[in-house]
């Protein structure tokens, strides 16, 4: 087809116009591209550069080794042991099921963990390591490692886990660690990022929980460059963390072991404190349990067993348990009266088996009465009426004040769980807490450690140490923290009249060593190791039949406190046996055995015991020796 020149010209100008229009649109769009480029690359550049860095760098934490715990002679009580587990990475494993089947032939796989691992394998990214076997033995680990070529994507892993070599002996003191729970995280403000690491262990109870900050240490950081699939390309920098601080306790592991073993199956507690330094040499509570069970994840049946046991093994009775101190409180009443100048040691009262106060009858344990009793005899024979009389004169305020001076009703801050405050009652306390006025009968009851008065075995030991030394002995559980010796608990003099103290001590001496003393059966024979002590039997409920004829739960608590040697006090001991019936029959022999162990640093010679007991003591010693922990090679001596 031919075209005329004019037609050609028209078409040409039309093309030019339209082409310029399209060109204009193109130019505008290029402008949009340029503007967008400028926006992204210049205006928003900082933000994107930050995002790129965030993309590129993965910061991971290097968990620090937890601080270890030692006893006063350096025996390891809590340590870190390698824990072995097996992980699988899906994208490296090829046929996952085939690999798992092969692995199952090498080591036994826990079906629960396997099921969990299978669901994780489906959900998580292909390069995530998923645990398929945990807490396996070294033998199993090497078996897996040796077969590595047949197990693609399977990797043996080594981490540190807590182990308590002495098991149940220290469980109430040190407690145990466990994996961080949501509850734990919720309790902590601003939690350490370490806590979010999988399998990170923190202290759950006892020293492990109270000293968590010291024991945990500081995490190191590892910055690695990762590629898009999250695989590490290279390490950029590594900052090593600080391992947790080691802690040395004042407790002696051999004495602690003896105390635990001696308390046996009783629901009981015993505390041994150094009178001169306040060092807690033993702080036992029974029954105990193996803390390693909790670290490894306790089985439901084991846990139910612990929860349902009526002897309450999970409770650390030496510091958490509070009991009416019974007659062991009589020293407090007596000292309060002496210091107030109301009576002197020579003054005596007449006990006719009971005391009538405003037509209410308060009985003495000895229904027939003690006759005329002075201070020393009242302590020796534990005459209740004598102390009723003192309380009527002295008043509860002065008695409670003396109790607090001696360490009852005040919280001793030692790093164990739920350390109890006990109670030294006052009129104000009763009004505000009980909403009733103090009546004279309350004072009468308090004078013999019944009624409202409550003390923990730790407080009773502290009281005894303070009576023995006249100083404000303060209990100390940590000897060295991170190698630094902690302040001694020797304390300043209490400012008590030495003459009064001497009378109290004399009374306590006669309790054990006088022919009519309530704890005469539990005396020590060596002249240089004589004990001074006090029995206590605190009522759980009022009853008229003999103690061993009622159900266990209704029986009286048996208590005993003592220090030794009488003329140069070294240690103070308190023993509480829940529902043990008699302080003199149940608690005193235990306290005597513990005292001898502490003073000798080993089994005492049988010559320390009254002749007729020696056969029985000998077989008991043999039995308990079998429960001693084996020597660990590092530590031999005992330093009581």
């Amino acid at each position: 087809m031919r075209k005329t020149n004019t037609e050609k010209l028209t078409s040409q100008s039309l093309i030019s116009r339209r082409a310029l229009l399209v060109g204009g649109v193109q130019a505008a769009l290029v402008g949009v591209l340029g503007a967008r480029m400028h926006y992204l690359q210049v205006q928003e550049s900082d933000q994107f550069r930050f995002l790129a860095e965030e993309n590129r760098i993965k910061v991971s934490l290097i968990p620090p080794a937890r601080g270890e715990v030692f006893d006063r002679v350096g025996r390891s009580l809590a340590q870190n042991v390698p824990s072995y587990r097996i992980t699988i990475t899906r994208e490296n494993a090829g046929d996952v099921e085939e690999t798992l089947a092969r692995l199952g032939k090498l080591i036994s796989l826990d079906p629960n963990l396997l099921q969990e691992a299978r669901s994780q394998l489906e959900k998580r990214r292909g390069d995530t390591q998923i645990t398929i076997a945990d807490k396996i033995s070294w033998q199993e680990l090497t078996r897996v490692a040796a077969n590595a070529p047949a197990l693609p994507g399977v990797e043996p892993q080594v981490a540190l886990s807590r182990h308590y070599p002495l098991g149940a002996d220290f469980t109430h003191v040190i407690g145990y660690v466990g994996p961080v729970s949501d509850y734990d995280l919720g309790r902590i403000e601003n939690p350490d990022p370490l806590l979010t690491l999988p399998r990170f262990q923190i202290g759950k109870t006892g020293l492990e929980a109270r000293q968590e900050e010291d024991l945990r240490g500081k995490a190191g950081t590892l910055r690695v460059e990762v590629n898009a699939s999250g695989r590490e390309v290279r390490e950029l920098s590594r900052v090593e963390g600080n391992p947790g601080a080691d802690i040395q306790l004042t407790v002696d592991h051999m004495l602690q072991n003896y105390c635990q073993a001696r308390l046996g199956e009783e629901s009981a507690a015993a505390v041994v404190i150094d009178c001169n330094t306040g060092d807690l040499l033993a702080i036992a509570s029974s029954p105990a349990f193996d803390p390693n069970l909790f670290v490894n994840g306790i089985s439901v049946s084991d846990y139910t067993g612990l929860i349902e046991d009526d002897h309450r093994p999970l409770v650390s009775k030496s510091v958490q348990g509070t009991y009416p101190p019974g007659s062991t409180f009589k020293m407090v009443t007596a000292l309060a009266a002496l210091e107030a100048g109301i009576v002197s040691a020579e003054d005596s009262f007449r006990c006719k088996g009971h005391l009538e106060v405003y037509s209410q009858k308060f009985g003495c344990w000895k229904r027939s009465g003690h006759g005329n009793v002075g201070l020393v005899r009242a302590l020796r024979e534990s005459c209740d009426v004598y102390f009723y009389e003192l309380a009527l004169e002295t008043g509860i305020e002065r008695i409670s004040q003396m109790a607090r001076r001696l360490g009852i009703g005040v919280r001793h801050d030692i790093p164990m769980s739920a350390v109890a405050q006990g109670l030294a009652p006052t009129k104000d306390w009763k009004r505000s807490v009980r909403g009733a006025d103090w009546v004279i009968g309350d004072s009468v009851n308090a004078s013999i450690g019944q009624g409202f008065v409550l003390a923990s075995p730790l407080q009773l030991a502290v009281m005894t140490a303070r009576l023995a030394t006249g100083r404000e002995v303060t209990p100390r559980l940590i000897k060295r923290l991170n190698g630094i010796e902690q302040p001694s608990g020797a304390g300043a003099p209490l400012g008590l009249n030495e003459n009064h103290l001497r009378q109290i001590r004399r009374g306590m001496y006669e309790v054990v060593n006088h022919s009519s003393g309530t704890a005469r059966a539990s005396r020590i024979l060596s002249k240089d190791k004589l004990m001074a002590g006090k029995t206590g039997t605190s009522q759980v409920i009022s009853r008229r039949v003999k103690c061993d004829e009622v159900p266990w739960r209704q029986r009286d608590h048996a208590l005993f406190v003592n220090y030794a040697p009488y003329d140069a006090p070294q240690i103070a001991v308190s023993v509480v046996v829940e529902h043990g019936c008699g302080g003199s029959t149940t608690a005193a022999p235990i306290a005597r055995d513990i005292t001898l162990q502490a003073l000798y640093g080993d089994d005492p010679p049988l010559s320390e015991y009254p002749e007729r007991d020696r056969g029985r003591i000998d077989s008991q010693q043999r039995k308990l020796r079998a429960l001693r922990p084996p020597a660990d090679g590092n530590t031999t001596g005992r330093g009581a």
Partner: protein
Amino acid sequence: MSYLEYNVKYVPTGPRKLLYLNWPLTLLLVAVASIGFLMLYSVAGGSIERWAQPQMKRFAVGFLAMIFVAMVPIWFWRNVSALAYGVSLILLLAVELFGEVGMGAQRWINLGFMRLQPSELMKITLVMFLAAYYDWLPLKKISHPLWVAIPVLLILVPTLLVLRQPDLGTAILLLTGGGALMFMAGVHWAYFAAVITAAIGLVAAVFQSRGTSWQLLKDYQFRRIDTFLDPAADPLKAGYHITQSKIALGSGGWTGRGFMQGTQSRLNFLPEKHTDFIFTTLSEEFGFIGAAALLLLYTLVIVFCVASALSNTNRYGSLLTLGVTVAFFLFFFVNMAMVMGLIPVVGVPLPLVSYGGSAMLVLMVAFGLVQSAHVHKPR
């Protein structure tokens, strides 16, 4: 149509034709391709063998093809336009029937010595045939409905075939490029207004169709649109491409992180970093200056092509040049807009820079046609 019909005063012959090539355009193409070599070297982590060398070989082949096409008189190309279009259409149909499936889409046809993408070929031959059509059509009939319906069919048939593969990016290019050529040829503007209105209606229909039995787009295409509208909603899956590419671009700043220093591309955060997303690597490593420089080079290519078209009184040569220009523009615009998060992710390579054989070859042949029109334009 004979040589004399053009009423030309002077047309170079023989080797002299080389002197009349559009040399600024030629140099610009070499410059753009060289940027591509550099970036392919960088994203391969400093390996020349991996992508840069094969790309250089292809560019060399493409360059020779361009010169060859440029030497052939433009009227020859005009006369084979219909044939070329027909062959492309048959190849597209062949792909539909026997094509290999790669990357989840039927796009390739295996010729034995090379794997050909007929949709690439169609981008050029459609422009050729439309230009020839409007060269042949008298100006009076140009806006007559019947004579408008024919080119519309010529555009829609390959577009629908490509869409079936599915290759949304190429379909859009064919549709927009063809439409632009019709517009420049002088079809009445009312048609375009009507089509744009209809297009808006269609988009509405597409969204309406979602989840019904007559769904018009594949699920992954819908997801890409969703992702485009809100990339943050799914940053690890579909939104990943856009998010990572914006991070790479943005972190470049004014001057970039330096050659081979881009962490986003080096550490594989970028998807398809050597093909569709190569622009992000350039932007990350050379910053705003580098990215703007490439944009400037592309713009200059357009400017020289449009200048050549406007100075060409041969209607076929002029329309062909403009058509190739619009296609070229759409290539780089869609790619850059995509990686910068302005439009949804559609699989369109960055012209002359992205790694890829048939796209490069087809584009060089297209510029060969532009050169031929330039060399043989009436003077």
